[in-house]
Each structure stands twice: as structure tokens, then as C-alpha cells.
């Protein structure tokens, strides 16, 4: 990275000591300039990540309601979480539902819609716009829209009734809340779909032609050509899906409180109580800050461990063209 000026200096028969001193000075200057440019992030990272992570670790060993001083309780919060808090496990089970059922369904539907888009030649921009549009709708508005559409006397049940199909109570019936969430989730598939579309269009045509020549059936082509080629994107979607599972809050919160703001978070019957809902409920409705901090640390550790495991396992099933990018 030697600049012309530096090279000139080097070519001069200047004394070695002088040269070294000057180089050290310019390196130090460069370092200072870089740190000056980095300063917003350095402040932000310290104030909004390092400090909160440490403070939250401390709070997680205390009983703390903000009004009075934190009171040291050792591992009590963690013990309560794993052994005595029944809603913790409900929240875990519901969050696992997102990661194991909802996210894979979204990935499958994303691949399917993207595949449809690769097959239509004319009208691609139109279809792409239509399929992507729901993703732009703010989550609160989408949730409110679906609460209305899926209300027991709403348009969807009206259509189901005309077809002589059962008319579920959707967001009022704990058994039907998750199918309802699935509909919202599949409606907003746009991001996943666009990523898969780009990845599908990136698969070299020669590979398909070769498979065609060898007489591969469509399924075989998909399994042995397409799937390995899009596996990096599947990996990315699963990783993001896991993190989003922990964050899942808005839709569930809006649905629970629709109709009556006094409904508890997770209504009906805690079927919509997700990990973040439990954290919100404990920290910011009950002001059990110590317990909420413990919940957030468990979340942090699980995300870190799961990410490492996913990355490690990815070497076995993710196919990178030309090595790891």
C-alpha cells in the first residue's frame, strides 16, 4: 500500500533511523485518523452493547424493580426460570414452534414462489411486485388486517362457510392461533423469496443442461443440482429465522391485545406467549428487571451457541462455490 510519496522517501538515501521514526509517526497518525472515523461506533458499541451486556449480567443475579436498589440473590432467577416458571417452558415451546415449523414452512414457500417466478417468462416484474408487496406492509398493520380477516364472522370464514368447510375461531381459539400466524408469515414471504430467486437465477445453466442430457428427472435435478447450489441461502435463512424466532413479538402482541387491551400477553391461553413476550411481560409489565435480565442472557447464550453449531454443521451440508465467501 506504499503511496508514491512514500516510495520517493524510501528511494532517497535517508538515514535509517530517521526513516523508521517517520514511518512510525505516520503509522500512528493513520491509526489516530482511523480511530477518529470509528469514534461514533466506539461510543455506541460501549454505551449500547458492552455496558448493557455487563449490567444485564449483574442484574440477572439480583432482584431489581428500578425503584429500589438491586438486591443480590445469586442464581435464584436462573433456578426459578428452569425449575419453577411454568410460562418459561410454554414460551420456549412456542418459540421452538416458530423455528421448527413456521420458518421451514416459510423457506419452503419461498423456494416454491421463487421457482414459479423463474418459470414465467413474460410478466415476471408484475408477479414479483405482487409477491413482494405484502412484505412492505408494517407488521402492526398486517397483524390488524389479519385479525379482521380471520375474525370468526370475517371474510375468510364466510368463504369457508360457502364451501361447507369448518369455520375455526382463529385468534380466539388457542388451537387455531398458530395456523393464523402461519398465514401471516406465509403472506409476508417476499424477502425470503427474492433471495431465493436471485440464488436460483445464479445456478449455471450448463448444470441443468448436463442433468438434462443424462436423463435426470425433475426431482433428481432439484435434489442434486438446485438444492446444493442454493444451500448457502437456505443456511442463511435458517440462521436468520432462528434469531427472528427469539425476537418474534409484534404480531403476537397485537393479536393478543386486539379487542381488549387488558388481555394478558400471550392470550388466548398463552398460545401466543413467545420468548420475547415473556421477557416483555416480566421486565416491562411486572418490572422484574432481574428476572428479565436473566431471560435476556439466556437468549444471548443460546443464540451464540446455536449460531456456532449451525456454522459448524454448515460445512457438511452447505455447498460454497469457490470456497467460503
Amino acid at each position, binding site marked *: 500500500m506504499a503511496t508514491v510519496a512514500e516510495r520517493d522517501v524510501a528511494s532517497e538515501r535517508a538515514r535509517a533511523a530517521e526513516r523508521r521514526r517517520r514511518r512510525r509517526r505516520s503509522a500512528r497518525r493513520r*491509526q489516530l485518523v482511523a480511530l*477518529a472515523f470509528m469514534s461514533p*461506533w466506539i461510543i455506541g458499541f460501549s454505551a449500547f452493547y458492552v455496558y448493557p451486556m455487563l*449490567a444485564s449480567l449483574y*442484574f440477572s443475579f439480583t432482584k431489581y424493580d428500578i425503584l429500589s436498589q438491586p438486591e443480590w440473590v445469586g442464581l435464584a432467577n436462573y433456578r426459578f426460570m428452569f425449575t419453577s416458571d411454568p410460562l418459561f417452558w410454554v414460551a420456549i415451546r412456542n418459540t421452538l414452534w416458530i423455528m421448527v415449523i413456521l420458518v421451514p414452512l416459510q423457506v419452503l414457500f419461498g423456494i416454491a414462489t421463487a421457482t414459479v417466478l423463474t418459470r414465467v417468462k413474460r410478466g415476471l416484474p408484475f408477479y414479483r411486485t405482487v409477491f413482494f408487496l405484502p412484505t412492505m406492509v408494517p407488521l402492526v398493520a398486517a397483524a390488524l388486517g389479519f385479525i379482521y380477516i380471520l375474525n370468526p364472522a*370475517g371474510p375468510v370464514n364466510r368463504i369457508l362457510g360457502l364451501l361447507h368447510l369448518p369455520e375455526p375461531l382463529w385468534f380466539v381459539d388457542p388451537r387455531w392461533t398458530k395456523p393464523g400466524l402461519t398465514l401471516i408469515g406465509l*403472506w409476508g414471504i417476499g424477502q425470503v423469496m427474492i433471495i431465493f430467486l436471485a440464488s436460483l437465477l445464479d445456478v449455471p445453466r450448463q448444470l441443468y443442461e448436463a442433468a438434462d442430457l443424462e436423463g435426470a428427472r425433475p426431482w433428481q435435478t432439484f435434489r442434486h443440482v438446485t438444492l446444493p447450489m442454493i444451500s448457502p441461502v437456505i443456511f442463511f435463512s435458517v440462521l436468520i429465522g432462528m434469531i427472528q424466532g427469539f425476537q418474534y413479538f409484534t404480531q403476537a402482541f397485537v393479536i393478543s391485545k386486539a379487542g381488549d387491551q387488558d388481555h394478558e400477553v400471550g392470550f388466548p391461553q398463552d398460545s401466543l406467549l413467545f420468548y420475547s413476550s415473556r421477557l416483555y411481560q416480566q421486565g416491562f409489565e411486572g418490572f422484574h428487571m432481574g428476572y428479565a435480565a436473566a431471560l*435476556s442472557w439466556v437468549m444471548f447464550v443460546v443464540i451464540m451457541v446455536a*449460531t456456532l453449531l449451525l456454522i459448524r454443521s454448515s460445512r457438511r451440508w452447505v455447498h460454497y462455490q469457490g470456497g467460503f465467501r
Partner: protein
Amino acid sequence: MSATTAAGAAASAERSRRPVPPEIRRRRMLLTVANHSVAIALSIAFLLPFVFIVATSLMTNQQALSPNIWPHPFVWSNYKTVFEAFPFVRYTLNTVTYAGLATVGVLLSCVPVAYALSRLQWRGRQAAFLLVLSTLMLPPQVTIVPLYVVFVRLGWIGSLKPLIIPLFFGDAFTIFLLRQFFLTIPQELSDAARVDGASELQILLRVIVPLAKPALAAVALFQFLYSWNDFFSPLLYAGNNPDSWTLAVALQQFTTLSRGVLWNLQMAASLLFMLPVIVIFFFAQKVFVEGVTLTGVKG
């Protein structure tokens, strides 16, 4: 992506020069019809919720609660009533304030950071970039408890400050996107400016920023929309003070405001809330499609 499409187009042009047997042509035609049928069916499924929402926003409340799917008569005045039924203008102003200042903050703070992470050589750069990437993965819930306590001490709860001020100190997503873009700008341009005696700040402002305008526009758009749509943070920090509510929070609280569910007004308000986003989307569709691809595949 465009290269592949172009290659594909060339290949198919070559193929079409040869005469196609009628059998194959018929089969291809049937396949096209089948593909379009699936695409049209999916389009209807994706658009139907919009139709229901628009229809309901034009009904009387009795109609909205009845099994009618189509409004009769059309109550266009619902859209006026929304503004009278609750302080819609105030919530819109709050939302614009939050989204606007957040965008300014993110641009001001992330441009120099991305510059240092992509175009300056210094010790610790790789480590700093890894830290940025790791915060990219962290959900806000992880740090929220102590931050809430800090904002209580500062007296910021009930205002928009906790939402806006942190964004003046960098945002991992924006830093990452801008860094990726800055890396694509040829190094020779900076070197030439350096030979001319330009300082790093001058290089950033006179060389890099003008070249990075599309990327800056994209991250500004993303941040604006993120803040416009954001629900969790405004609920948490401003939820206790109706004067600071953003549209997302106000819409969720609508049932309290109207003392009961008024579905027609709720849907009209939701539509007004999503309208700017959808309009922006139609004008800047390319940015979204390419932005998503950039973050998704090239990450």
C-alpha cells in the same frame, strides 16, 4: 445475476433460430399456461388480504361486523373520520420525527465508520469489523433491560429520545451495507486524491460520498422504513405517554382509544399507515429487490 440472464437470453435466442417441431411447441405452450395459472393463483392469494382491508375500510361499522364482504354503501367519509376520531396528525408527526431523525443519525454516524472499515489500513480493523458483524446478529431484547434502566434515570422514558439518540452512534446493519459498497470503489481514486494532498475527510466527502449516492439512498430508505414500521421500541420507551406514540403504537392501541373495536376505522387507519410505504416501494422497487439480494447472498 444480470450476466446469467443475458447468457440465458442469448442461449434461447440461438435455440429459437432452429425450427421447433409442433409437438414440442404445443407442450411448451401448455407448460406456459400451467406456469401462469399457478402464478395468477398465487397473485390472487397475495392480493386478497389487501382487497378485504380496503373493502372493510369503506364499510359502516355494522357492515364490517356482518358477513358482508363488499361495502354497500361505500362510506368514503371513514377516511375523514379517522382524523377526527383520534389525533392521527400528531401520531404521523411523531412517526415522521422518529423515522426522519433516525435516518439522519444513521447516515451521519455510519458513513465515517464504514469508511474506516473499508478504505483505511489500521491495526484492529478486522477485529472491529467482526464486532460489528456480531452485533448485527444480536436481537435488541438482549440489551434492553439495562438500557431501559438508563433511560429511566435520564428521564427519557415517554419520549422519542431513546429511539433516536442511539442511532447517532452507529448501526451495524447500515455500517455493514455501506462497507460492502465502499469496498467496490476503486482504490486508485483514493490514492490519486492522497497524492494531491487531500486529507482522509476530504477524500470521504469529495470522492467516496458522491460515488456512493445510490448506496446512501438505499440505507436511508431502509432506516426510514424500519423506523416507520418499528413497534417494539416505541411501545417500550414511549408506550406510557400517548403524546409520543408513533402510528404503529397508536394503531395497536386504537381499540382503547375508540372504546371498542371499530373495524372500519381501524382498517382505514391501517391503510393510511401503510400507504406511504407502499408508494415508496413502487417508486424504489429496484432498491429493495437489490438491497435484499445484497444482504442475503453476498453476505
